[in-house]
């Protein structure tokens, strides 16, 4: 692995030459990254999940066509052009991975965390999900729960619709959204 001084210099060199060529501006990188730091993240996905929990018709639309359902909440765009939501139940548990790179539903969950991009996750989740979920994510699933691993290998971007926890029956949508985690929408956690 290159040391940080070398990496910092390589990045600055690339940026400075692109700026000199007029291809980008000195403000471009910061403006782009700030969108992902402040506007786009799992809080958006949490709104989708909470809506599906309180509105049965929305839930059905979400499972039938997640792209259109998310647009109802003004959620969509780059790396979420074709979204599919998969529902976790008492008997079927979905978990999402990208073994070839790091495909992830950006408009719903933001950019992916390190563990999702790690070679360990990419290598092992398709082959031994029961063990990885139990040992690395603290999610032991019963033998009676069927596991479906979705490898995001083409253009569809996936997220999971977690089960609504018991005891939240009288909660409103906003309060519900507050308990929905990124991990529960990738399928490495339940709520």
């Amino acid at each position: 692995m290159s040391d940080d001084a070398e990496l910092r210099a390589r990045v600055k060199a690339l940026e400075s030459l692109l700026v000199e060529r007029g291809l980008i501006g000195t403000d471009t990188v910061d403006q782009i990254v700030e969108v992902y730091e402040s506007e786009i993240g799992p809080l958006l996905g949490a709104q989708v999940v909470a809506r599906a929990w309180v509105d049965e018709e929305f839930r059905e639309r979400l499972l039938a066509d997640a792209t259109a359902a998310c647009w109802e909440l003004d959620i969509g765009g780059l790396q979420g052009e074709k979204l599919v939501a998969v529902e976790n139940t008492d008997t079927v548990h979905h978990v999402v991975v990208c073994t070839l790179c790091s495909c992830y539903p950006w408009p719903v969950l933001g950019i992916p965390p390190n563990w999702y991009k790690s070679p360990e996750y990419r290598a092992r989740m398709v082959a031994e999900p029961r063990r990885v979920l139990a040992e690395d994510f603290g999610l032991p699933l019963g033998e009676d729960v069927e596991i479906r691993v979705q490898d995001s290998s083409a253009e569809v971007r996936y997220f999971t619709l977690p089960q609504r926890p018991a005891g939240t029956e009288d909660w409103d949508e906003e309060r519900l959204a507050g308990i929905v985690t990124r991990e529960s929408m990738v399928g490495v956690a339940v709520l």
Partner: protein
Amino acid sequence: MDGPHDLGGAPGFGPVRFDPDEPLFDHDWQRKVFGLTMATSTIGLYNRDENRHARERMPAADYRATGYFEQWLVAMETNLTELGVLDAATLRARVEEFLAAPDEEVRGKAQPDLFELFRDTLEFGASLDRPVPTPPRYAVGDHVRAVSSAKPGHTRLPAYVRGHLGVVRRVDPAFVLPDTNAHHEGEHPEHTYNVAFNAHDLWEKGDHEVRVDVWESYLEPAD
């Protein structure tokens, strides 16, 4: 192609280091790499498949020894020099200048209009779905086999399903074929499919199902 990126089922990996509270970027240079990749792809200097292929062409030992954002940096350096946007010797000379003066910042002009272009891409997406005149060859429930041979260039068929039998679970729209798009050989859109494979068939262990999304030419009829 067979490459170091094709990690599904690869042996020898230890525990996933899960940290629910990790920052978006561990280092400022990673933040810059992300922004530069988004900027250079948005202005169309290279396409998404080319970007992936540049990472996949890294020597396996280098790929494994570098972190995620360093792989992205290598891909940018590879694509921008191979495409002639930047000259490799000039780039290296500039790296040496910044190494000699590490506190020096990048100077030049701002380009606020460029961000508006990015904003459009972000909000409306850059979908690679394309209309095709032919109907899908396979239907939900069809038994199919993933093709066994890997071509030398870019592909999105994970090695672990090659030659294996699966069942079509969903028919998706036609999308630009990465195998040609990565090499500037045209878009050649094909229907795509969600195909379910039985873990025990793939790994000789496990009771789960693995679902993979594939382009039509990655499949053949099971019989």
